[in-house]
């Protein structure tokens, strides 16, 4: 509030001077308001601005400070002059007014911000290490105290070596543990490489059977794999014969324990189908029990295979409707192949648990026919193959599993008979019987021919067996020759041995069908020998100029031979005065007869007529004793005889 000075311009009287305190706050507004005391008076009211707060006061004062007063510019004096002037300028410059109260603060902050950005950029670039790298400043190394350093290094090395040694110890220990017995898992890996294994629940099971290659034998064939319980404490020295022990054991089904094999035997029995001969054979010891799993499994698989063979054969034997009955007793199948020849197939399975054997078997008594046993194995594999092996269908949408012939049966209009033929297939038992029959027949033929070949030396027999043969067919060629004359004349025939009959193809083209009887072949050979002798005589006669008056291959007269038929030859000497008759038969052998003539009697007998030509008719024949002749065989003796008789009388 101020009172205006009411005094006008004074002339003489005294002027009233009002003294009042300095106004602290500024006047913001002047108003005319109604006076509160008087009714019609007015008052001038002054409204002061609110007093400044501390910060406002500070701001006001700070505004007055000029931080960056350019003193040299003000005064115009060079700055290199004394500091006093600088101070003066500073004080003067301090009151320089600025545009905005916080401007200097802002500038300071701005510069600070700029410096921080620069620092950040430097750090980023330094971090990138491409344009700038932070490097430590070489500090002056402190003085090395050698003994102390040595001690500290030694300690450090000691601790490091201690750690390394401890690790090595542990490794050595575990290595030693593992090398003693082989790891279960390692063995399991090897087992898996050879056999099919499957994990069911907690147990590992495997499959021994041949099902994956086509077998349909419903026999229990799963084996179990377990960890071996006994420790390998007694490994000691392993002898070369002992099997390696592992940490893995296999448990095979009880029916497959032990070893087994199929024994095929062909023997001749005096009576047909000797039932008492069907003894249950127990084979001799078949080898130690195997410990190593691979051998154990292989042996068990073999047992399964043999059992399947026998089961199949037994089933076929029971179901067969052939004329020859097959006998199945226990583990043996007996059947007659030929009268007097018996085939027996035995499944010999020893479980290895027998303590004492009631029937002592000498090792020589087991008569194996290994070829037929092998054939049985092959036959079963053939059955397996047929189960699995289907030809690929062309076109590919055709039915799976049928052969091309069957698929084309419809379009080609095959008859019912042909279709039925396609479905027929021989049973395993029939096949093995056929093979056995052929085997027996071939051996018998061989023996027959060899018996002749070794015993006869007059015409000689030579046999050449063909190497192109199979289990059901074989063939050989037999030559009959006389020694010394073998390039001039020979007889030969080819024997084709089938399952139960022999077919002979003769040199001159005739075919003979013989049965399995031995005697028929013997008779045939004897007959051929007889024919050969006649041919030799014929050949000799031609060679020596004798005339063949008559030749009869099958003589219808004279005594009946036991087997076969005789042949004869009538020869006349070159000068027509001697006649020889040769007769050769299978059982009677070869006989030579010479016709008696006038020369023998030396003209002692009287003749009715004087003409010479009557001398040569009607004379008797006398047998020539060939054993008194010189000569290795009949042919040479005959040659000598003919030479003697054809000596012409000059």
């Amino acid at each position: 509030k101020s009172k205006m000075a009411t005094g006008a311009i004074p002339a003489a009287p005294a002027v009233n001077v009002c003294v009042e305190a300095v106004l602290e706050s500024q006047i913001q507004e002047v108003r005319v308001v109604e006076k509160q005391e008087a009714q019609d008076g007015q008052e001038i009211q002054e409204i002061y601005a609110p007093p400044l707060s501390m910060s406002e006061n500070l701001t006001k004062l700070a505004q007055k400070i000029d931080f960056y007063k350019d003193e040299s510019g003000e005064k115009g004096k060079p700055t290199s002059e004394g500091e006093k002037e600088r101070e003066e300028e500073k004080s003067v410059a301090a009151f320089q007014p600025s545009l905005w109260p916080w401007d200097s603060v802002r500038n300071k902050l701005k510069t600070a911000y700029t410096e921080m950005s620069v620092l950040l950029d430097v750090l980023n670039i330094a971090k990138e290490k491409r344009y700038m790298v932070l490097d430590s400043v070489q500090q002056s190394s402190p003085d090395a105290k050698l003994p102390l350093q040595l001690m500290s290094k030694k300690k450090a090395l000691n601790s490091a070596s201690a750690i390394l040694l401890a690790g090595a110890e542990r490794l050595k220990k575990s290595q030693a543990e593992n090398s003693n017995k082989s790891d279960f898992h390692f063995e399991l890996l090897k087992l898996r490489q050879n056999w099919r294994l499957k994990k069911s629940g907690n147990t590992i099971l495997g499959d021994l059977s041949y099902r994956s290659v086509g077998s349909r034998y419903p026999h229990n064939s799963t084996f179990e794999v377990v960890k071996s319980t006994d420790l390998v404490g007694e490994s000691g020295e392993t002898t070369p014969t002992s099997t390696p022990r592992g940490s893995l054991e296999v448990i095979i089904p009880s029916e497959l324990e032990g070893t087994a094999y199929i024994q095929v035997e062909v023997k001749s029995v005096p009576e047909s189908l000797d039932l008492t001969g069907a003894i249950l054979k127990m084979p001799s010891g078949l080898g130690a029990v195997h410990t190593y799993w691979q051998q154990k499994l292989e042996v068990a698989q073999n047992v399964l295979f043999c059992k399947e063979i026998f089961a199949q054969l037994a089933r076929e034997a029971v179901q067969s409707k052939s004329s020859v009955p097959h006998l199945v007793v226990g583990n043996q199948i007996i059947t007659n192949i030929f009268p007097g020849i018996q085939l027996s197939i035995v499944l010999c399975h020893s479980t290895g648990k027998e303590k004492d054997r009631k029937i002592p078997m000498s090792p020589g008594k087991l008569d194996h026919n290994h070829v037929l046993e092998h054939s049985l194995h092959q036959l079963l594999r053939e059955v397996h193959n047929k189960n699995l092996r289907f030809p690929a269908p062309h076109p590919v949408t055709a039915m799976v599993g049928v052969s091309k012939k069957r698929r084309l049966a419809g379009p080609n209009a095959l008859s019912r008979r042909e279709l039925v033929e396609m479905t027929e297939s021989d049973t395993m038992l029939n096949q093995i019987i056929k093979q056995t029959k052929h085997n027996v027949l071939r051996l018998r033929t061989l023996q027959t021919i060899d018996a002749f070949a070794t015993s006869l030396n007059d015409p000689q027999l030579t046999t050449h067996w063909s190497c192109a043969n199979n289990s059901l067919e074989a063939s050989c060629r037999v030559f009959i020759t006389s020694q010394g004359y073998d390039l001039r004349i020979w007889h030969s025939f080819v024997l084709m041995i089938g399952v139960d009959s022999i077919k002979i193809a003769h040199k001159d083209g005739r075919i003979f069908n013989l049965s399995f009887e031995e005697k028929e072949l013997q008779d045939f050979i004897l007959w051929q020998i007889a024919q050969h002798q006649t041919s030799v005589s014929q050949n000799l006669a031609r060679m020596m100029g004798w005339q063949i008056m008559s030749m009869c291959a099958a003589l219808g007269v004279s005594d009946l031979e036991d087997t076969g038929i005789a042949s004869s030859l009538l020869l006349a000497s070159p000068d027509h005065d001697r006649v020889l008759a040769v007769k050769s038969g299978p059982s009677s052998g070869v006989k030579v007869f010479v016709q008696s003539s006038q020369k023998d009697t030396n003209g002692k007998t009287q003749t009715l007529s004087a003409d010479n030509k009557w001398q040569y008719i009607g004379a008797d024949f006398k047998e020539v004793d060939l054993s008194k002749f010189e000569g290795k065989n009949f042919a040479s003796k005959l040659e000598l005889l003919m030479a003697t008789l054809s000596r012409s009388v000059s």
Partner: protein
Amino acid sequence: MESLPPMFKAASLTTEYLLQGSIMEQSRDVLLQRLIGLCDDTKSPPDNFHDHEMVFHMKNTTIQQPLVYRVRHSLVQSDCWSLRYLGNTEMGDKNKPTLTRTSIDCPVSENVVQYLNELGFRMDHEFVVKGYYFHKGRMKVTVSKFFKMNQPSNVADNLEAVCPSFLVELSVVTALGQEGVGEDMKNFAEQLKPLVQLEKTDHRKITMNQT
């Protein structure tokens, strides 16, 4: 008179169970190796087939869908011709793991084309299929590639592959109503899983996209 052999009394095999998948050309060898390992009686290289198929349509004024007969003959064994009728593929419900369709296949003689022409069928299209064949039990697996014939009735030259990938099909042709076939097929398809996905594809979607 002796009784008929059992093959004459067999049930008629008219249903085909089918699963299909496809692989790119570069994965063919891997798939073939896996199939050689899984299937029965395989040899390396596997059996291959080369067939020529002609599809005949008989159009009827009353029925919209033409009757389709397929004549397929093998170019490897050229006397094997067959005539096939395929019904529509049925997806079945979700439980059925495979597609089913009627499939009647009959081996025929070589003059079947002439016969069909006489009956009134007209050839709609033809193609050549080449591929590999495997079997496991009664399941048939084929990996095949289709070729378009640029010249009609010329099966040797000018063949152009329809697309470079291979079609893998797993099928069983058996009598109607056989249980367990689908399950067996599904289990087998599982074993081929990462190499090829054999699944039921809806053929109706393919035919709808064509029209």
